[in-house]
């Protein structure tokens, strides 16, 4: 009840009300129930009743029936709708009837597997048939098989457990390569459960799809044909995605028939405190006040932050906050929760949350997954988590069967957040992202083919999932050529003396860089990064954060694949600068932008080869985000063959911009000494244009600032002679135009780069951007090119190409609505960071593209 009171209060309190840009209500709905199907074993039914489950939700019943009819199923009924019973019920029922039958459960993380095992065990202990072996012989019915499993337990699990709970990495490294030891499981495998498939997107998902191909291949060899049961969080087209992942048809159980109370969803934008730079109040401050209000109203709160560091900072700030003075027990009642906390600690926090001892938990997406922490009243998201799917997932952490619940999205100043603050409706109406995977990306496929080959020889024309037969043959031949395989008696055999599955599923890089710290004499390995990421994160001089502690990189050795790090106390972060060139360019599809008022602005999609190089980095104060210093570097260039999307402006647009350029060039006030400096510069340059060489006649030549005036703090500095150059009117216009287009492109690129991942449902680092005002592959026309940071690509750029117009419109509206003057971190990039504030130019450009004058 008190939450309702608070919400009423917020509706009237202006200081809060003004920051709530949108208030969305989702009405309550009652549950739909039905009794257990007749063919559920009595003992199982009894055990469930012991647990308080006296009847099923309608969708659980439907799931059971589908499985009875031998269908693969996909459950998308939402968080807290009893998804696990949807699969556990048919599986346990089957296992009771067939004493040798087994099931394999794949969870995306170890923690989730442990949580699910714990919960399921409480049902199992009520079922005598499943308890006998467990009690008499200490054979665990559920075998938790992951990196933490003791060596001595592994054999028992392999030989006796009926349910194997594991994760994709363990399946890849531990189970599939050792399949003869798992003969019992593979020969009796009747079910495969894959939980939370929406997490298997991008490179990781493409790996997992191939892992499933390997699993199915072995299972077939051992003579089983399992039913797949998948669950997914909120995504678009889940059925299509699921059948792409397992390459089999699935039936969807989508309706959520569990009861739900009223839900309130608030979009909260911190107030602007500095209009010139578009600077808003820090979301942490807002979070403190909101949490204070909620605690005073006895609401239990889960706070999601977007990074580990943010969790720790929020934790400190909330515990110290004077707003929370009334809570004498703050240390206890406010806790953090991250994946790097020890498992026992996390279990403790989960329990204390359920008991209500902890009132506020601050976490990353570690608690986004289905770990049971009871029913919370309020969820606060500090910063947009990056995808609509993830947002719904986190918001649904607050939601109770019969009472009101509250979700708050607290927006930060980054472009995507501000985009959402202006388009909350759009966010709500938009279907969540569709995860993209490309199991046939040749590099990913090649690695799994190699593993599959080591697991079992390949017949000459054997298929591997739905991958193209010619591609498979080509890749197998490549393995023979590399002397990894031989071809003998119409079969391919793996012949290397070292195992092939040494790569990680989470990247697609062959080379890993070890991060080593020698501070305590003995070298200690902190972790591994793939080579591409290493260049960005552990270049010499970089500040690298590991478990919340800053380390400085002393050296990055590409020959020995190690980076040496040392603990540091500096108070800045580093951002790498990257240079890119396009070496090869092969358009596959091209279309003109129809709406634009010139007809030849082009969108394209195709294969490119990009060479990138980290050529420096800037040190950024980690509180003020001010750039302290720029440092030059020279790392070896990397060549990446991948897919790209591009936008090229045509000549008419450039001409139009030239006209507009005259309009946009506002006279600058160049300070007191300007007339004198101007004369000195012209005299120094002999009254000659320094580009075309024309000597001035009746009209004095212009004098141009090489580095734009507004970059300097004082006019004296800007007007120093070495920053000035004499140009004729014509050349000056060209130069300015280029600058304008370039700055417009840069601004546009900045916005694109931030907003495109939202549309492609990927991480920001999955996409790279190349901006060129005179792109040689497109007749030297201005071009913005977005490429995938994944060799071969996995479909991200194709997706962007398909929805490019929508993306351009979104970016246009976003920049247009941004309240800043000259560009800010929320739209086209900070003036201080990106050079010339390209907001005006970017908008002019976008107007042309969307045909809006």
């Amino acid at each position, binding site marked *: 009840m008190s939450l309702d009171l608070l919400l009423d209060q917020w509706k009237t309190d202006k200081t809060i009300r003004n920051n709530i840009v949108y208030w969305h209500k989702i009405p309550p709905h009652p549950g739909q129930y039905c009794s257990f199907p007749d063919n559920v074993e009595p003992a199982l039914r009894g055990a469930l009743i012991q647990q308080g489950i006296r009847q099923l939700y309608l969708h659980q019943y439907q799931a059971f029936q589908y499985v009875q009819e031998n269908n693969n199923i996909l459950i998308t009924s939402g968080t807290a709708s009893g998804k696990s019973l949807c699969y556990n019920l048919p599986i346990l029922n089957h296992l009771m009837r067939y004493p040798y039958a087994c099931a394999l459960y794949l969870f995306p993380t170890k923690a989730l597997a442990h949580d699910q095992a714990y919960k399921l065990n409480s049902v199992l202990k009520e079922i005598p048939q499943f308890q006998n072996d467990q009690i008499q012989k200490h054979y665990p019915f559920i075998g938790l098989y992951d990196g933490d499993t003791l060596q001595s337990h592994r054999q028992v699990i392999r030989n006796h457990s009926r349910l194997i709970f594991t994760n994709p990495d363990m399946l890849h490294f531990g189970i599939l390569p050792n399949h003869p*030891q798992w003969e019992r499981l593979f020969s009796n495998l009747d079910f495969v459960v894959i939980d939370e498939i929406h997490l298997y997107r991008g490179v990781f998902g493409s790996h997992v799809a191939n892992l499933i191909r390997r699993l199915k291949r072995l299972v077939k060899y051992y003579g089983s044909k399992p039913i797949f049961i998948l669950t997914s969080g909120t995504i678009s087209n889940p059925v299509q995605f699921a059948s792409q992942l397992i390459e089999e048809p699935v039936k969807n159980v989508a309706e959520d028939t569990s009861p739900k109370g009223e839900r309130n969803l608030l979009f909260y934008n911190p107030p602007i405190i500095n209009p010139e730079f578009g600077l808003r109040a820090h979301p942490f401050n807002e979070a403190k006040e909101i949490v204070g209000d909620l605690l005073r109203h006895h609401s239990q709160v889960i706070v999601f932050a977007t990074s580990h560091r943010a969790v720790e900072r929020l934790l400190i700030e909330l515990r110290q906050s004077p707003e929370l003075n009334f809570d004498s027990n703050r240390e206890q009642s406010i806790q953090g929760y991250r994946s790097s906390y020890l498992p026992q600690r996390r279990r403790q926090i989960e329990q204390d949350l359920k008991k209500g001892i902890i009132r506020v938990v601050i976490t990353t997406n570690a608690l986004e997954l289905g770990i049971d922490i009871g029913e919370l009243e309020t969820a606060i998201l500090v910063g947009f988590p990056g995808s609509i799917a993830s947002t719904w997932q986190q918001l649904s952490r607050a939601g109770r069967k019969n009472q009101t619940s509250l979700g708050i999205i607290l927006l930060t100043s980054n472009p995507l957040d501000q985009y959402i603050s202006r388009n909350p409706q759009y966010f709500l109406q938009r279907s969540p992202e569709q995860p993209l995977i490309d199991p046939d990306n040749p590099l990913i496929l090649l690695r799994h083919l190699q593993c599959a080959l080591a697991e079992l020889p390949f017949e000459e024309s054997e298929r591997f999932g739905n991958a193209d037969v010619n591609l498979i043959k*080509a*890749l197998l031949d490549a393995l023979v050529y590399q002397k990894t395989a031989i071809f*003998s008696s119409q*079969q391919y055999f793996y012949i290397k003396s070292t195992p092939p599955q040494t790569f990680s599923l989470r990247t697609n890089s062959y080379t890993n860089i070890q991060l080593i710290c020698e501070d305590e004499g003995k070298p200690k390995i902190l972790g591994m990064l793939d080579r591409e990421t290493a260049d960005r994160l552990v270049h010499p001089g970089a500040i690298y954060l590991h478990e919340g502690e800053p380390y400085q990189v002393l050296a990055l050795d590409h020959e020995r694949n190690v980076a040496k790090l040392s603990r540091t106390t500096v108070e800045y972060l580093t951002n790498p600068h990257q240079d890119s060139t396009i070496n090869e360019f092969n358009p596959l599809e091209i279309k003109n932008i129809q709406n634009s008022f010139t007809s030849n602005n082009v969108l394209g999609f195709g294969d490119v080869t990009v060479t990138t190089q980290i050529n420096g980095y800037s040190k950024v104060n980690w509180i003020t985000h001010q750039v302290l210093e720029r440092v030059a570097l020279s790392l070896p260039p990397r060549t990446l063959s991948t897919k790209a999307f591009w936008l090229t402006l045509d000549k008419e647009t450039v001409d139009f911009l030239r006209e507009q350029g005259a309009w946009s060039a506002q006279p600058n006030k160049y300070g007191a000494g300007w007339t004198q400096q101007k004369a000195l510069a012209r005299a120094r340059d002999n009254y000659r244009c320094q580009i075309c060489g024309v000597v001035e006649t009746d009209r004095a030549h212009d004098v141009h600032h090489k580095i734009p005036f507004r970059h300097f703090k004082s006019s004296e500095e800007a007007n120093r002679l070495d920053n000035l150059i004499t140009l004729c009117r014509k050349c000056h216009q060209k130069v300015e135009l280029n600058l304008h287009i370039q700055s417009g492109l840069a601004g546009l690129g900045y916005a694109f780069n931030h907003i495109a991942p939202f549309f492609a449902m990927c991480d920001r680092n999955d996409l790279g951007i190349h901006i060129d005002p005179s792109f040689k592959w497109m007749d030297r026309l201005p071009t913005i090119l977005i490429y995938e940071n994944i*060799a071969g690509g996995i479909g991200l750029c194709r997706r962007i190409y398909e929805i490019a117009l929508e993306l351009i419109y979104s970016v246009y509206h976003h920049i247009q609505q941004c309240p800043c003057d000259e560009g800010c971190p929320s739209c086209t990039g900070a003036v201080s960071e990106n050079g010339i504030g390209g907001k005006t130019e970017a908008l002019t450009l976008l107007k042309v593209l969307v045909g809006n004058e």
Partner: protein
Amino acid sequence: MNDLYNHLKALGINIGIDSLKSPKSKPLLPADLLGGRVVENHQGNLILVEKRLNLELPISNDPISPIFIKWANSINLEKVNVSDFTILDIETTGMLGWGTVYAFLVGLGRISPEGILVQQYLITDPTQEIAQLIELEAQFAKTKGIITYNGKSFDIPLISNRYRFYRTHPPFNTLAHLDLLHLSRRIWKERLPNRALRNIEAEILDIQRAENDIPGWLIPQIYSQFLQDQRAEILLPILYHNQMDVYSLAKLFIHLNNLIEEPNQKDLEFIQDQIALARFYANLKFNERAIPQYQKCIESAETSSQKLQLLEELANLYKKMKDYPQAIPLWEQAAALGSVKAYIELAKYYEHQTKDYSIAYQMTKAAMSLLDSERFNQFDRLYWQSGLQYRLDRLRRNIFPRTLEEEDHE
């Protein structure tokens, strides 16, 4: 197709179209080159290399020591001879702990009065593995047990996996298994820091291998190389290496069998080995052998601390047999040499067996004053002290029940 190849090439995947000719007809098995012959069964063929080696030992068909059998936990075996067992050693295609590695070479050895017959089953193509496993199964059917070096954790699980892989049952269930690594560890733990077979054979058996014998870890790489280029001659060193492993194992087996059955002076010139053997017997509860072995060791102990240790162990053995008359003088000797433990054992004996509390009290006191001597550091004292004090208090209560009560009243 060319588009595909170019696309893959751009990604750095080279297919080398030119080098891929249509597969040649299968080369003949290089049996002659390797000094073997082709054997064939219904699943295919493979190479068998056989060699008879002289063991340079005066053996007839000796029985296997019952102690050995008991140690191996194979109680169902009775009256077996060394010739009833088969020696097994394998060479594999990859490193340990990787489930799809297979044994491309399996060496078997049979001991007879004429020496040892080494049979090596070699596959030169992965398709021959089933044929190899069938041959092995026939061989295992003829034997009562196998002898390996670390076979419990390596050779046998690995081959078993291969049988399972081909969906058949491993043929080892009924066989006894003597893993000599485990026994060698027991016997030479004190003396030899490295119990690799190569080291044992050099130190104990005086076997000299050819200088160019290859190290075992290199073998998978050499075999992988062979599969690529089919130069069979590079397999010759592997055959030699495996043959020597089997030969060495045979000698080690006979050596250990003799050592534990009738230890002679020559084999036991080191006191560490004699002690290890005494402990081995005691552990297997062959007390009638353990006791004289301990006594011999005590006589020839090299240091007083060694002697003390042995006295304690033998006394402990008697204690387990409840033979206190034998144990007491040993404890007394040990106590005289400065054993706190022996004093405690004596105290226990007098307190619990004969109820002679005042002697028990004296023994405890003696242990405590011994602890005060310079030979013990503070950690030893901490370790013993509280237990001793507790015992002392209890004994005092038993000896002076009244007095204590009175004290309490005061």
